[in-house]
């Protein structure tokens, strides 16, 4: 499992590096090398580190532990083919972690970042109503059952495209510089990350790397199905490029607009799932 965790971390950081590269090329900038996020993580780990004077020391340090721990757990759930509700539960915990990062720091920027994280959670999390659409068809929320269902009936991406779109919005909300990235808006410096520097920031890169791999891998498993390893890598890279294009070509929404848009999509998803349930699922 240790090799899998290291591979997922490395791949996730490379995907984030690819994201930055694609966004930069769209903006006609050369952009950083693809391995830049990996270099950042290594660089931060070797910087001398303090806890700020005004920070809550225990929470400031402990929240990094929680952040890394939950994404290691999420990765293990994906590897084991476990229940997607656990993965999405961990995604919700990530919101609490972001809030904890911000509040523990004693910095106004961090606190605003933490507050925005909770605001955005209010609109992102209901998007998981798409899970209900999946359950209506597969009668199970275990990843291995969902993959088995798709092996027989074809990708859920074609069967329940609105659910895939809702999940795509959840992925988009986690992308740096995306339309829903209100948590890390430039007016907040680095948002909830502002005061976590040195090896604490390196820990945040570990979280981001694992999170990126877990969320993209889960999306591919749930909406495309089982693939050979090379297939997963190719599809995840393509998915990341699509996300990067979306981020580069859409403006960052204000917190109000971000919440409104996601709430509207959630409402539409509820209607969609209600219609599926009312009409009955074929097969």
């Amino acid at each position, binding site marked *: *499992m*240790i090799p899998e*965790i290291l591979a997922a971390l490395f791949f996730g950081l490379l995907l984030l590096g690819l994201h930055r590269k694609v966004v930069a090329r769209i903006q006609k900038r050369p952009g950083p090398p693809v391995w830049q996020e990996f270099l950042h993580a290594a660089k931060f*780990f*070797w*910087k*001398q*580190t*303090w*806890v*700020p*004077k*005004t*920070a809550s020391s225990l929470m400031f*340090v402990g929240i*990094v*532990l*929680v*952040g*890394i*721990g939950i994404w*290691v*757990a999420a990765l*293990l759930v994906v590897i*084991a083919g476990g229940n997607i509700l656990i993965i999405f539960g961990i995604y919700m915990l990530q919101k609490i972690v972001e809030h904890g990062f911000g509040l523990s*720091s*004693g*910095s*106004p*920027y*961090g606190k605003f970042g933490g507050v925005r994280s909770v605001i955005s959670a209010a609109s992102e999390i209901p998007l998981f109503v798409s899970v209900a659409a999946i359950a209506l068809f597969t009668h199970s929320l275990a990843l291995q059952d969902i993959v088995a269902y798709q092996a027989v009936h074809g990708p859920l991406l074609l069967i329940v495209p609105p659910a895939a779109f809702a999940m795509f919005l959840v992925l988009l909300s986690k992308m740096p510089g995306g339309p829903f990235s209100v948590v890390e808006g430039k007016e907040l*410096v680095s948002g909830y990350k*502002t*005061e976590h520097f*040195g*090896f*604490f920031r*390196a*820990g945040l890169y*570990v979280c981001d790397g694992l999170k990126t791999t877990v969320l993209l891998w889960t999306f591919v498993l749930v909406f495309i199905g089982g693939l050979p390893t090379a297939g997963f890598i190719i599809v995840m890279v393509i998915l990341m490029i699509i996300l990067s294009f979306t981020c580069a070509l859409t403006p960052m929404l204000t917190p109000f607009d971000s919440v409104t848009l996601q709430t509207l999509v959630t409402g539409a998803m509820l209607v969609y799932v209600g219609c599926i349930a009312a009409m009955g699922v074929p097969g």
Partner: protein
Amino acid sequence: MKKKDARIIAALTGVLMGVLYFPYVAGLITFWTYGALLVIGAPVFFLAAGFAMMAGEGEEDDPFIGY
């Protein structure tokens, strides 16, 4: 946390995760038993290693309050 304590914690968690990998591969301990160890051990190892090597020993930092 003292650097010496951090070094001991990092070494203990690192050795524990490394040593128990072999019984896990041999099937002597279950996926989730070893998984639980990693979920707790990996972040502890990471932070303890950071504290052992790069914790500042001078005065604490002021938080960033603007440019």
